[in-house]
């Protein structure tokens, strides 16, 4: 008879509700959710958080995080979050949006919320495709990438180039912090969490608008295995969407 001494080394954050998610195998939303959840716990923001969810695969985020939430119409999360924050300025307000929601139908709302310097945080999950509706072309779809609405691959001359949101956001006056991370590897996930923390802190200490783009995999709509999807992020996405901090006006930060 040997005694088993088990030591729990990895657990879910308290704020994340213990239930199965609806996400496909290999989807990176789960990782992004976890990073947000870890930070809300570590920064003790849960009870003060008013979350604005968006339309897309992450619409059910409100089923996974144990915080008060409002569901915004497609693309309007930054406007809804503006209203929430103006109504309750002492609360922690963030949006969580995908690339179709934020960079296409919601382009006006994200640009102006950022430019006004709303004291909110934006988590932008970029997987270069409309996931929930079945894999259509997104504003971030790479040139040559095949989707259900560009079956021959995205053509630059008729469909334009993928939009680099973080660079655009970083150019706006009201922005305190804008960074791009990736969820393809442990190293990048750790850096992504640092970006998110910085963006959240910009709100909690009143510095201003924080924006973090997370390059993410969508194996289902990319028609890849999860490992192939990670490789695609490294080989195809990061060269076009470079990682790093594009704006940081906080005390110990600097523009790089």
């Amino acid at each position, binding site marked *: 008879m040997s005694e088993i001494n088990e030591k729990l080394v990895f657990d879910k954050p308290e704020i994340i509700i213990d239930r199965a998610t609806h996400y496909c195998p290999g989807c990176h939303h789960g990782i992004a959710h976890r990073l947000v959840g870890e930070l809300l716990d570590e920064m003790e923001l849960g*009870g003060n958080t008013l979350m604005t969810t968006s339309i897309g695969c992450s619409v059910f985020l409100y089923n996974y995080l144990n915080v008060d939430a409002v569901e915004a119409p497609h693309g309007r999360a930054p406007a809804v979050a503006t209203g929430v924050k103006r*109504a309750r300025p002492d609360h922690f307000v963030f949006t969580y949006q995908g690339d179709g929601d934020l960079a296409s139908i919601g382009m006006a709302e994200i640009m102006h919320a950022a430019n006004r310097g709303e004291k909110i945080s934006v988590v932008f999950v970029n997987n270069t495709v409309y996931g929930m509706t079945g894999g259509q072309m997104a504003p971030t779809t790479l040139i040559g990438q095949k989707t259900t609405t560009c079956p021959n691959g995205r053509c630059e001359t008729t469909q334009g180039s993928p939009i680099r949101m973080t660079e655009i956001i970083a150019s706006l006056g009201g922005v305190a912090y804008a960074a791009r991370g990736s969820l393809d590897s442990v190293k990048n996930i750790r850096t992504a969490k640092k970006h998110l923390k910085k963006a959240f802190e910009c709100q909690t200490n009143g510095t201003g608008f924080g924006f973090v783009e997370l390059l993410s995999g969508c194996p289902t709509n990319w028609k890849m295995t999860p490992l192939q999807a990670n490789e695609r992020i490294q080989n195809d996405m990061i060269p076009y969407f470079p990682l790093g901090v594009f704006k940081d006006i906080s005390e110990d930060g600097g523009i790089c």
Partner: protein
Amino acid sequence: MTKQPERIFIKGNEAIARGALAARCKCFFGYPITPQNDIPEFMSTEIIKAGGDFVQAESEVAAANMLLGAAAAGIRSMTSSSSPGMSLKQEAISYMAGSEVPAVIVNVNRGGPGLGDIGPAQGDYYQSTRGGGHGDYRHFTLAPGNVQEAYDLTIRAFDIAFEHRTPVLILADAILGQMKEPITPWTPEKIDDEAGRDWAITGKTADREKRLIKSLFLAEGELAEQNKHLQAKYESWTKLTECEQFETEDADLIICAYGSIARIAKSTVRKFRKEGKKVGLFRPITLYPFPSAQLKALAEQDKRFLTIEHNLGQMVDDVRLAIRTVSDSDFFPIYPGNLPTPDELEEPILKCLEGK
């Protein structure tokens, strides 16, 4: 309610803005469009002085969605616009109705369709009373007929919104918005800013479940249940209908009109009364819910009806629905783009009166 003694001479638009502040509106989200600009202009400074906040949004769409956010947080909030802008706001209004958040929206109706003109019109009646966006919903719609009423009904609108968790629309028009009249401002005695907010997102505390403001219902049967619940709510409003009746008691002919047109028609009715002609005026103040019962009661007294609107015939449908089992209504249109005078209404009214 404590009436303050002073009289002030202000535009209808300003009366709406002042009424909102009296009702302790704390957030205003606007966008420039004529003829409602006095409202955001007034609010841009006055709501800040009152301890609230103002945002000039990047679009009508964004302004309405900011309203959704502030309203979801349980704070008395408002937006205003005019017809073309109202088309853009409908997305958020549908979400507000679907997720049952209380908010006040003002439409200073101008001429349409399309860009139309910046003059008065009533072409947005259908949009204002049928749920102007997608899906099956209604919202409360109040139609003031003078500047004092614009002030009073704005205060009422906030109470209705929070009592019934619904968007409330104030449907004015360019005449009312731009017309100056003396009014007596007043302040409601007591408004509790936090009472009855057990649905609003305020931050999850350990002693309660998290709150969700949403209109997505995917599980089997869930959406049908929600629609049933909404329908029951709308049906409960029928007891809250309101109207003005002027000289209707012994009238042979009842003019049905709302807003500024009712006021013009009232002048014509007054003139005819002096001449001994038995004409009266029925003015709905709540457009949704429509005061059908009051109208039907008149129809049962064997009266005739003439609906006059500043459009091609919209409210006349509701008039006819209300009295359909006993009577019918004639209709006289004032085409948007034209400004009617009391004299111009004499001929159509006279024709109806004489049964021609």
